[in-house]
């Protein structure tokens, strides 16, 4: 069989398999010739090839990139691959119809579906835009009854959907929902009561309604196979006694993340029941009543000391900082610590962080200030991921963190791979230093919260800093820029950002050149989201040869016109071009489109677009 590896010529996209692969990409369907140039070799029949492939090769292919490549070899490989692929990844729920997916892939055990574009998290998309789980569920309930794993991100899911899913997938083992909305605790009750084999139930950053349903009591009475139970985003009180009993009868439970309605006293009781936990979200981390002086309190320190396997700690939703010392026993083992809901200062952080020498992931609030970050830098030499969130998400607030903290981190945490940093002021020098000190950076997201804010010491735009990042961090795939940026910044990105897949731009650039540099320079660009930047139609046209290779392009409050968008739609029929208009007064008009959201699709415009979405 042919051993040549033509991966570089194949589609750059790793997520979306070429589902139309039969016509254009397959060579003739006769048998593939064997080894090197033996003229007397008789090619095996297609059926035999299929059999060999199924047995020997495809079962070992797990990565979807490999499988996509295999499916392009010839028709019989395409069919064999389709029959044996058990894990599906749908990066954009509208890029392909559920029917097409279930027609091609028959034996799916795990599926991941992503819906809304990321800017919807920041109220830039009206509600009811779409990404409904319903149609996918209908198709899967017919074709994938043996489904074991379901992962949904930014999808709109209803209580009925959850009830149907619980009913349709009797051996469902994992349900993970991230940034989803549209359902409430009654949907969770369906899952709890009917998914008897559920091992992983994770609800993250989702907006879940409080139907006052006691869903925790809906889990069956016998021993469960729960291994991971995450519900920290559920903004509703829960039946604690039922939870305590659930934990007591879940011997495999390793990950437990509680919501803010669990007090520290209740946390204590749960920890006593589950000392085998590896991942813990602590809930509120404050008591229900303020304990008076001299009154006896539970020994939280001993509860943590008993959890010898704990490596990941989060929660602290309403922390009373005095209680933080209870976690000292586990600090030395922690690889992940999330204090991003804990409004603590540097002095309160230091005694904790100085013990966390194994820490790889750290999320924190800027309340710890530059001084706190210096302590992190001194203690956490193995840090890979840092996120610093703002206590005050305002443009003109006092910022406790600055270039000082960023510089300190870059000097102490040389293995850093991913950073998200909110601040009020920054300098090019610090960003340049980070680009040199942390060459392993894969994700660099800097958010200078004041729009168009320059280097606060030199007054220069932030072009050079971001330029250094794309130039020196050769593994960079994700970038978010901010501050005062001219077209020059984009020329750097286009010149050096050859591996860049995701780029987020806001309030930046001068002219169309900025966007042109990106579209012409970054061959791997998949996801481009731009807001409030002066890029117009001629820049939009510069990407014509690239849009089919992208997952999506988002442009809101820019300078693209309706005519420009119509032209794109005309020239690229495989794109769905959505123009989203916000409500306007009668006499308010604008020559520019409010929001342009476009993405490739094999199945044309969606049928469920609301009235404020115009598909061109």
């Amino acid at each position, binding site marked *: 069989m042919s051993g040549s590896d033509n991966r570089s010529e194949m589609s750059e996209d790793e997520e979306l398999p070429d589902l139309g692969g039969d016509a254009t990409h397959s060579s003739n369907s006769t048998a593939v010739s064997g080894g090197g140039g033996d003229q007397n070799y008789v090619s095996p029949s297609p059926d035999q090839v299929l059999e060999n492939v199924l047995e020997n090769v495809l079962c070992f292919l797990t990565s979807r990139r490999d499988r996509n490549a295999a499916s392009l070899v010839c028709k019989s490989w395409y069919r064999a691959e389709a029959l044996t692929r058990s894990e599906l990844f749908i990066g954009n729920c509208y890029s392909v119809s559920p029917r097409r997916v279930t027609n091609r892939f028959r034996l799916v055990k795990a599926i991941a579906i992503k819906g809304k574009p990321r800017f919807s998290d920041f109220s830039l998309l009206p509600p009811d835009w779409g990404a409904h789980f319903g149609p996918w569920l209908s198709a899967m309930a017919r074709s994938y009854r043996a489904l074991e794993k379901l992962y949904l991100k930014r999808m709109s899911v209803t209580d009925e959907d959850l009830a149907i899913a619980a009913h349709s997938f009797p051996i469902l083992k994992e349900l993970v929902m991230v940034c989803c909305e549209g359902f409430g605790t009654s949907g969770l009750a369906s899952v709890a009561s009917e998914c008897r084999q559920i091992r992983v139930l994770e609800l993250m950053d989702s907006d879940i309604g409080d139907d006052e349903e006691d869903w925790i009591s809906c889990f069956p009475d016998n021993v469960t196979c729960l291994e991971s139970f995450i519900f920290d985003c559920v903004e509703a009180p829960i039946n604690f006694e039922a939870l305590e009993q659930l934990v007591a009868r879940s011997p495999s439970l390793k990950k437990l993340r509680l919501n803010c309605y669990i007090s520290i006293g209740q946390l204590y009781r749960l920890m006593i029941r589950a000392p085998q936990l590896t991942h813990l979200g602590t809930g509120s981390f404050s008591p229900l009543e303020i304990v008076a002086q001299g009154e006896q309190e539970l020994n939280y320190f001993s509860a943590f000391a008993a959890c010898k396997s704990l490596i990941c700690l989060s929660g602290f939703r309403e922390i009373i900082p005095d209680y933080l010392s209870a976690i000292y026993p586990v600090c030395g083992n922690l690889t992940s610590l999330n204090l991003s809901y804990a409004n603590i200062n540097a002095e309160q952080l230091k005694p904790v962080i100085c013990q966390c020498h194994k820490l790889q992931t750290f999320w924190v609030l800027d309340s710890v200030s530059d001084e706190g970050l210096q302590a992190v830098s001194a203690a956490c030499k193995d840090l890979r991921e840092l996120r610093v969130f703002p206590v005050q998400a305002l443009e003109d607030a006092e910022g406790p963190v600055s270039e000082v903290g960023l510089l300190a981190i870059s000097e102490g945490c040389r293995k850093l791979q991913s950073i998200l940093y909110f601040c009020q002021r920054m300098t090019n020098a610090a960003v340049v230093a980070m680009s040199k000190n942390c060459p392993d950076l894969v994700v660099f997201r800097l958010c200078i919260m004041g729009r168009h804010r320059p280097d606060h010491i030199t*007054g220069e735009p932030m072009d050079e800093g971001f330029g250094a990042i794309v130039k020196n961090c050769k593994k960079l795939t994700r970038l978010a820029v901010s501050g005062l940026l001219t077209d020059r910044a984009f020329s750097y990105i286009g010149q050096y950002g050859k591996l860049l897949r995701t780029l987020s731009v806001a309030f930046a650039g*001068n002219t169309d050149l900025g966007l042109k540099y990106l579209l012409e320079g970054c061959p791997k660009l998949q996801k481009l989201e731009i807001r409030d930047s002066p890029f117009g139609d001629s820049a939009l046209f510069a990407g014509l040869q690239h849009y089919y290779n992208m997952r999506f392009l988002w442009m809101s*409050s820019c300078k693209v016109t309706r005519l420009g968008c119509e032209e794109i739609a005309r020239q690229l029929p495989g794109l769905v071009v959505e123009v989203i208009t916000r409500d306007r007064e009668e006499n308010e008009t604008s020559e520019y489109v409010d929001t342009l959201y476009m993405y490739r699709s094999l199945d044309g415009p969606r049928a469920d677009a609301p009235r404020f979405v115009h598909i061109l």
Partner: protein
Amino acid sequence: MAMISEEHNKEKLGFEETELRLGLPGGGGGIVNGDFGKNTNANGKRGYLETVNLKLNLSLKETEKGENLQKEKNLISCSNNAVKPPSKTQVVGWPPVRSFRKNVMAVQKSNSEEGVGGTATFVKVSMDGAPYLRKVDLNMYKSYQDLYGALGKMFSSFTMGKCNSQGMMDFMNESKLMDLLNGSDFVPTYEDKDGDWMLVGDVPWEMFVGSCKRLRIMKGTEAIGLAPRALEKCKYRS
């Protein structure tokens, strides 16, 4: 500090602040008494509706934003010096922080404003018949109306009936009070520092926050038993 200004106001206004009157519901101001005709309190604090407006007035209109962008662009192309955008109002979705992070921080902020940890004004709220307790931080609210609104969201059967624009109850007119308690399904009560159970709304808001240890929303008919004691205590206080 709040207490001092209240005493001052008492003198100025002839005890109007602590004088309890019955007004119409909905915060429409004391129609009965013209003095409370506006939403602002006599002591100058913002009324509930004004507070609400302030909180909601966050998004900058698109056209304004567009104009600002144009202005900013002109400024930028002129010089490289630090130029702040002309408008200081907030822009939708900026900075890009998800809403659940913002909400949580508001809670944290009020905790830290109280000073050393441990002095946040969290009180347990129970409602007769509801299975779970809630916790509220009284410092999150600026008036009784605020609090009732939040309680109404947490406990779906609870709506606050007749009280005046500040949410305070009329304790001076006994028969009117009995009517109120007989008519309401649920009435909020609280345990104060002395350990007594009082009807919510008897004292000015700040005083209430300082003395409330826990809240209980009980059936109106049960609360009648409290009313005489509440009346006694109020007379004693004023």
